């Protein structure tokens, strides 16, 4: 219905509680256009690149050491796995598989994960020369689209890497208050990161098409493109691309929200767009909403329309030590050491690299770690400043900025004194670890670290309780079994003594046992005659 299609750009009317305004530092990297990075020599691809744990054991690696692979070839398979959350990984280059081994890939615990190491051996062809064919997806079934997305290895590329095919697996319903809506998350609220911004500016048409594909899969009625107001060029690009769409059956609109961190979080975004809060048991699909990042939608477009598997992504390389900061297409598996050499970063000035943004990112000190689907930004800053941690003065600023309206101060006190039960009552699980409370703390207390510690301890406590419950049950069962055996044995013994006693008594009366035998025989005869008489009388009665 063409009347639904209007180019409307609206300002957000709702907002969420709290939030901070850190210095953005985005202009460093957003002014230059996208460049494709020269491919490197060595690639390390983790087998599990989605956010789902415990999946490594159920992933089959279908390449072997020494096998030759091409760009985009699938390296792992999930066909035989019962785990529905597996997502395959693909080779980022033409080359040979060097090793399949455990390698520490940057998990915060520094534990090693299964990694496939590939040596590139020839020029990896440029993206556009691989395929020029465009698929028509409008007639394809939803199931086949979801399968294609899964096979292409697409996970949420906003940093959380949740498997996309799981999010799209059930269609949305619609009611009078909440129509089925796809919210495109272009907020990019964290400082330094500009990859989504540039992606929109340069590939707006493709992102919109990706959004249409996804809306077809889950039966959306409306699409909302949510973006912050510090990205005016991106808004213009989207407006242009929406104008070019001629036939569309959905409502498509742009929502511009004020710049505030963390408005890009899923819960906060839903609150900005709809003003509604999710209860603890609800998922966004209970409000008939699906949230997708722009980079994910671009990957969906590439997978469905151009048949390309996910082998690279746009990464923001920024910081004071980088000579040409900007956004680059970097294939997965590129070790950071190659990036350091390519950008002429001086290693002696570099203490650690930050993956992601300064507020929610992760710190990496080892430079062998490869990029993966999670890495959307790399910050290389000079030597850092050390600040002392002081005592909490209970000023309450942390509570003022918390987007979930928790009491970080109370959580801190309980976490410090290791009391886990009160923390559950204070809704520790609802914390999204955004770091806003940490940012405003005047005493520079590492609050988010305390919360992560508390969450891990609570999980451990739960695990221990379950284990001890199980042990107790097995112990009780064992006790019961042993008791049963003991009683049975006692009863048997008792019976045996009784039998023996009886036998000895009988022996005294009848030493050979002949008398009892004679008595038994006489009894049998008596019984038989009795029976015969009864049947005879019965017959006579019947007559």
């Amino acid at each position, binding site marked *: 219905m063409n009347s639904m299609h209007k180019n409307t750009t609206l*300002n957000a009317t709702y907002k969420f509680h709290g939030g901070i305004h850190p210095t953005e530092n985005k202009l460093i990297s957003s002014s230059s256009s996208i460049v494709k990075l020269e491919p490197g020599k060595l690639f390390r691809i983790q087998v599990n690149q989605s956010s789902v744990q415990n999946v490594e054991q159920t992933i089959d690696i279908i390449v072997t050491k020494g096998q030759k692979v091409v760009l985009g070839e699938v390296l792992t398979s999930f066909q035989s796995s019962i785990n529905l959350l597996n997502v395959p990984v693909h080779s980022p280059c033409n080359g040979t598989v060097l090793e399949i081994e455990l390698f520490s890939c940057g998990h915060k615990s520094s534990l090693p994960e299964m990694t496939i190491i590939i040596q590139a051996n020839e020029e990896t062809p440029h993206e556009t020369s691989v395929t020029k064919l465009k698929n028509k997806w409008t007639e394809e079934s939803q199931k086949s689209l979801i399968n294609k997305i899964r096979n292409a290895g697409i996970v949420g590329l906003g940093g959380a890497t949740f498997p996309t095919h799981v999010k799209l697996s059930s269609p949305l319903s619609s009611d009078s208050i909440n129509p089925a809506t796809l919210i495109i998350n272009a907020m990019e609220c964290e400082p330094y990161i500009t990859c989504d911004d540039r992606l929109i500016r340069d590939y707006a048409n493709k992102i919109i098409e990706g959004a249409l594909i996804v809306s077809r899969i889950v039966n959306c009625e409306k699409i909302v493109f949510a973006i912050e*107001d510090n990205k005016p060029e991106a808004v213009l690009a989207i407006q242009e691309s929406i104008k070019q769409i001629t036939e569309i059956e959905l409502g498509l609109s742009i929502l511009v929200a004020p710049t505030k961190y963390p408005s890009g979080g899923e819960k906060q975004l839903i609150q900005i767009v709809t003003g509604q809060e999710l209860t603890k048991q609800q998922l966004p699909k209970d409000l008939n909403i699906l949230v997708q990042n722009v980079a994910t939608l671009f990957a969906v477009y590439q997978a469905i329309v151009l048949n390309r598997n996910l082998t690279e992504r746009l990464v923001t390389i920024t910081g004071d030590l980088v000579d040409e900061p900007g956004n680059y297409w970097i294939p997965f598996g590129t070790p950071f050491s190659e990036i350091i050499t390519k950008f002429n970063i001086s290693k002696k000035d570099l203490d650690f690299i930050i993956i992601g943004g*300064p507020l929610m990112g992760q710190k990496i000190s080892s430079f062998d770690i490869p990029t993966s689907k999670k890495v959307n930004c790399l910050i290389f800053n000079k030597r*850092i400043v050390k600040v002392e941690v002081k*005592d909490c003065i209970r000023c309450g600023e942390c509570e003022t900025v918390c987007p979930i309206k928790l009491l970080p101060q109370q959580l801190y006190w309980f976490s410090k004194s290791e009391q886990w039960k009160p923390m559950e009552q204070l809704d520790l699980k*609802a914390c999204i670890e955004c770091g806003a409370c940490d940012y405003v703390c005047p005493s520079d207390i590492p609050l988010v670290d305390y919360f992560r510690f508390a969450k891990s301890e609570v999980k451990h406590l739960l695990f221990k309780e379950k284990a001890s419950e199980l042990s107790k049950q097995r112990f009780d069962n064992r006790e019961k079994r042993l008791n049963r055996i003991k009683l049975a044995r006692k009863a048997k013994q008792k019976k045996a003594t009784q039998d023996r006693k009886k036998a000895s008594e009988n022996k005294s009366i009848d030493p050979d046992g002949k008398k009892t035998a004679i008595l038994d025989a006489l009894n049998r005869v008596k019984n038989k005659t009795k029976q015969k008489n009864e049947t005879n009388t019965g017959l006579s009665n019947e007559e």
Partner: protein
Amino acid sequence: MRNNPFATNTRTTNQLMLLVCAGLIPGAITQFYFFGWGILINLILCGVFAISAEALVLKIRKRSILKTLKDNSALLTGLLLGLAIPPLLPWWMSFIGVYFAIIFAKHLYGGLGYNPFNPAMIGYVLLLISFPLAMTNWLPTSELLTLKPDLMQSIELTFFGVTNDSLSNISKNVTDIKTLADGFTMATPLDHIRTSLTQGFMLSEIQSQSNENVAFTINSNSWIWVNIAYLVGGIYLLFLKIIRWHIPVSIMASMVVSSIFLSMLDDQIYLSASDHLFYGASMLSVFFIATDPVSASTTQKGRLVYGALIGFTLIMIRTFGSYPDAFAFAVILLNIASPTIDHYFRPKVYGTNITGKKIPIKIMDDNLQKDNLRGNDFKDDHNE
């Protein structure tokens, strides 16, 4: 070392405390102008005592002295106590007050952030109860004094209790100084009003602008100026967002409401709202003492309740209790209650305030477009 976040806003605890000390400056200068050198001597003495007490206790506790002193909280406690006690108070009384406040009311509970009570107020209450005469011996404003002690004389009075009057060469003590030209002493306005009320006078008589009452009027005016200066300092702190508006506004609101209610009953016995707000140490306690973050309530709704109860208690003790000015007691009583207030007035966590009423998404609806559509100029007027 720790993980994310790797950024912070630059205001630290040290700066916060220092800025609060800076906010005290207008009030301190005004107090000094009206009440003489005694105020300055008290400030310096109490500041020095506070820092030395903190250093001593840190040494005993085997903590790093410089790092903890740098957070300026001891300095702030000392300065607050120094402004709350009367000028020309004997030095050993300030010594006892400050040392008790820092050692017992702050460090024995664990140091900064662990004390349940406001240390300055604990020190003040200790002095008030132990030395009631000396502590209620406020000088009248220096305009009214016959002998205005200069710096040297003030120092001598503070340290020795007596000084030589340069004109008549007789040694005078503080009580002599307090005596006005016509032989009677004048204490703080609240004190004067309370004693006059017990003697049976009505408020209109006490506060009249008559010639007999010149002394009272001059004295009470200077106290009003002092409170205005503290109000200015407090607004400065609010503007810098060092303290939040919840506590000061709620205290003042509840003071106004309680005093209006009382003066509706009988306005000859009960002071009016403006009198309560501008006499005594009201503004000092509203902006600087009750807002001490460590001992106050921490949740925002809890702070409103905390402030309201402080205001109410203050008016009650002033009107019906036995002390003329009772901010210390009001604050300490509510410090006892602040954990309970925090427990019952927690914010509703995200996701728990669902009333069942869902708000429809207001976009792409033709009827509502007029309200929400702003076309292409999205750059203007966004909040924050």
